[in-house]
């Protein structure tokens, strides 16, 4: 299951979708909205996705992971729209026979999703807003 949704993510449903009777491990990554960025308070985040391509890219990542680790089940759900601090923005769940491969596959999937999937977030502060990572960082020191 790959889902891009405006509705709150049902974490248990993602886990259930990934689970398998042959699995000895289900590894779950839950990404949440942080209330601060660069020392400023984040009031909310705006997430946006190029949905059809995001689903394609996530499918490629899952295919790669399935070739590298013996996955028995998997599910990825990414939220879009307006999210407040503490809300769940993404859930990745993978099931495998043993725990080691579930940790490795789960980390690979979330890391690669963050690097490749066409999804963007804008941080909204009390005094302005900014698309995350869009521009080169200002030199500090």
């Amino acid at each position: 299951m790959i889902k891009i949704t405006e509705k709150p993510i049902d974490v248990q449903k993602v886990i259930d979708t990934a689970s398998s009777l042959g699995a000895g491990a289900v590894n779950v990554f839950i990404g949440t909205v942080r209330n601060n960025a660069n020392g400023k308070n984040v009031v909310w985040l705006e997430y946006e996705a190029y949905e059809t391509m995001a689903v394609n890219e996530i499918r490629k990542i899952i295919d790669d992971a399935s070739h590298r680790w013996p996955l028995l089940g998997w599910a990825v759900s990414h939220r879009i729209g307006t999210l407040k601090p503490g809300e769940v923005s993404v859930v990745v769940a993978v099931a495998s026979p043993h725990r080691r491969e579930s940790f490795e596959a789960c980390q690979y999937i979330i890391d690669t999703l963050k690097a490749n999937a066409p999804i963007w977030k804008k941080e909204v502060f009390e005094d302005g807003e900014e698309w995350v990572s869009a521009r080169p960082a200002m030199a500090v020191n």
Partner: protein
Amino acid sequence: MKYKVKAFGVTKDILGGKEAVVELEGQTVAALRNQLFQKHPALQGLRSLLIAVNNTYAEDNQVISESDEIALIPPVSGG
């Protein structure tokens, strides 16, 4: 040629909308990006600007046609 281009994230703000029509002589991804850089210099200030053709990241030398689904992909920040 006239290409319809989808814009997301910061590129939507720079182009002033979710979609734009770009007219140019060339037929490659690189030519399209150069034309966009000329018309919207703020795009050059981004960390990167990838272009997707038909839902897949495209190489600079890829040939595009007017019927392709073309999208601007500024640095992604999902998760």
